[in-house]
């Protein structure tokens, strides 16, 4: 099914109607959150490091033009090439041309959300270049012809049995649902591709301005292979993904990695400074760094500019009650969860993505867990405000809010409404819970239950408390 052609509400209904994926995502997200909490408990400096990390991100983004220039100068001084891509088409054209010039037939890729954002694989395949994803999760996604459902764990929505069936069908291997056997199948299959591909494509977790270094984080080692064995390495980087110094990187890496997976450090923190140097026994002959704007400079001139501090750890989606319930695909964007609900409309425009800022309860868990303390609820409210001014709200919502506004401005009417609500909900409730509401309100109770309104309203309790027990 092509999720892109569905509306947001259709995608959500679809996700909620698929309990297997739904449960897998919830379970996975909870496990990530628990692993992170365990790691933080063992790492007392975490809170201070997060403060420091926020300062580093704030400084970097507030002088981004200066650091970008410094970074690019150093990449070039190290023997790398820098390409400035205004949008997805610029970036894709450049990589396709590189592939053509280098007679590249096969590309091996390390996981990169930026390449998902610009749909680089499509562009390369359209030019006749074979592209193979090498991160185990991305490899599975590619075989299945799907999109990632999580920025760190792309196949959070799939069960081991589904992966086994997929490998059986696409790789002609005997069926197994044993993750260890599946791991070995993928290792064997991808090994020859690593050793023979002409071009390796990676993302960039952080670029270090002072040295032109690319930092690339992977657990599997595919990030090292993609940047070592192929003759040409192309790295694509969102323009905000810089840190000024190596010392700043030493702060950011543990903060990112503990937040993402609960590991003190991810297995491979790979620092790449230029292509292979004279005398070095291995490494790529060419290094190209594509610096991508694609809406980022526009976002920087809006009320949600703070989202550019984001380091893409995924902690906010793991803890989000909405993400845990609907999974990543329902958001329809390559960036799901609270981060995605801000960054997607910020980069790609509210016109197409105005529902996403509403996919939040504003509970604030994302803000509490964010390693660089981005005030995501504030940004979501900003986007809701802009969206309602741009008249994106549906008619029923506008009418409903107008009726509510009329009632809320008249205390007598409001009290009457509350009393009716209290009586009505208690009549409909079973043991204090509303499990089903009559149409047209049944949509509210399809996937959740509500408490009946209390017998006595807060105002009643407050008045009683003031006049009898505790006179002020």
């Amino acid at each position: 099914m092509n999720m892109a052609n569905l509306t947001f509400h259709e995608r959500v209904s679809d996700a909620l109607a698929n309990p297997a994926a739904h449960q897998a995502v919830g379970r996975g997200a909870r496990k990530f959150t628990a692993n992170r909490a365990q790691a933080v408990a063992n790492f007392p400096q975490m809170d201070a490091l997060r403060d420091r990390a926020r300062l580093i991100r704030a400084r970097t983004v507030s002088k981004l033009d200066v650091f970008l220039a410094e970074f690019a100068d150093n990449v070039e001084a190290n023997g790398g090439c820098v390409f400035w891509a205004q949008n997805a088409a610029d970036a894709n054209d450049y990589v396709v041309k590189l592939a053509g010039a280098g007679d590249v037939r096969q590309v091996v890729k390390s996981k990169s959300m930026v390449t998902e954002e610009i749909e680089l694989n499509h562009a390369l395949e359209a030019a006749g270049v074979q592209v193979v994803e090498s991160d185990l999760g991305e490899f599975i996604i590619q075989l299945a012809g799907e999109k990632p459902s999580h920025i760190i764990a792309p196949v959070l929505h799939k069960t081991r049995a589904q992966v086994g069936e997929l490998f059986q069908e696409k790789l002609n291997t005997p069926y197994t649902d044993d993750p260890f056997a599946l791991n070995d199948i993928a290792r064997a299959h991808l090994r020859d591709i690593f050793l023979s591909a002409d071009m390796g494509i990676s993302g960039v977790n952080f670029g270090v301005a002072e040295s032109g270094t690319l930092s690339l984080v992977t657990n599997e080692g595919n990030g090292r292979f993609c940047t070592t064995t192929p003759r040409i390495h192309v790295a694509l980087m969102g323009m905000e993904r810089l840190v000024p110094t190596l010392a700043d990187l030493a702060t950011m890496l543990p903060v990112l990695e503990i937040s993402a997976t609960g590991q003190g450090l991810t297995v491979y923190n790979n620092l790449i400074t230029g292509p292979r140097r004279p005398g070095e026994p291995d490494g790529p002959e060419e290094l190209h760094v594509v610096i991508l704007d694609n809406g980022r400079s526009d976002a920087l001139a809006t009320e949600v500019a703070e989202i550019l501090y984001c380091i893409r750890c995924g902690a906010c989606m793991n803890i989000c009650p909405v993400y845990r319930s609907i999974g990543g695909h329902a958001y329809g964007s390559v960036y799901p969860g609270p981060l995605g609900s801000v960054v997607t409309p910020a980069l790609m425009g509210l016109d197409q993505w105005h529902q996403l800022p509403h996919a939040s309860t504003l509970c604030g868990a994302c803000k509490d867990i964010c390693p660089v303390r981005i005030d995501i609820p504030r940004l979501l409210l900003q986007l809701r405000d802009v969206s309602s001014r741009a008249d994106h709200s549906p008619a029923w919502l506008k009418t409903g809010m107008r009726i509510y506004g009329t009632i809320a401005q008249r205390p007598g009417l409001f009290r009457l409404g509350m009393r009716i609500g209290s009586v009505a909900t208690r009549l409909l409730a079973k043991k204090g819970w509303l499990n089903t509401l009559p149409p047209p309100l049944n949509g509210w109770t399809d996937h959740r239950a509500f408490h009946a309104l209390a017998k006595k309203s807060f105002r009643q309790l407050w008045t009683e408390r003031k006049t009898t027990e505790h006179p002020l």
Partner: protein
Amino acid sequence: MNRRDFLSNVRHSLQGNYLPVAQSQAPPVQSFSSFDPHDLAAQFTERALAVKSEVHQVTSHAAGCQRVRDILAQHQATRFIGWRDEFLPIQGLNNELAQRGFQRQDSTIPNEPADRRETHLALSDVPIGLTGALAGLADTGSLVVSCGDGCSRLSSLLPPIHIALLETRLLFPTIAHFVQAHPDAARRTSNLVFITGPSRSADIEQTMTLGVHGPKELHVILITADHE
């Protein structure tokens, strides 16, 4: 798009002052209390074991050499790829291994595309990679490995088993301590890598599997010895 226009767009957007914090100063330099690397061996070992590395503590170069031979023999390996002698902390180790029948295979990769591919494929069934290390990080059980002339990247990446020789005197408490002592570490090589355990994935139902693409086993020979 050219660089000037790209950066001028960024500059123009920044002039709107939409960021919550106007932060132009670098955060204060972190101050670290001094430490003795030898006190860090126990923590390094504990954390390295926790990330599924194997740690072999030895107190002499001869014992270190013996451990390397044991691991090679256990895996019925007759050849390995690895770093040149002058970059390993045990003097003459490669010669010593050669005399015992373990052959170090050259892993220099040629430039020409077809030769490059052929050399990679020829090395693909070498069972063991042997390297030194620039440093170790105690709080995460990590190795810091710097590549360069005589120190190939593939030695710690391609074979299913990686043996790393690390001297206790090169231990640091954290990555931040290491960077403070080696502020040029990234600049000095095309590839610096922090390795924390063997390769792993948890992509399939968050079950941890080892050796997805990189080594399945990581042996750290931790050497505490006077210079011989």
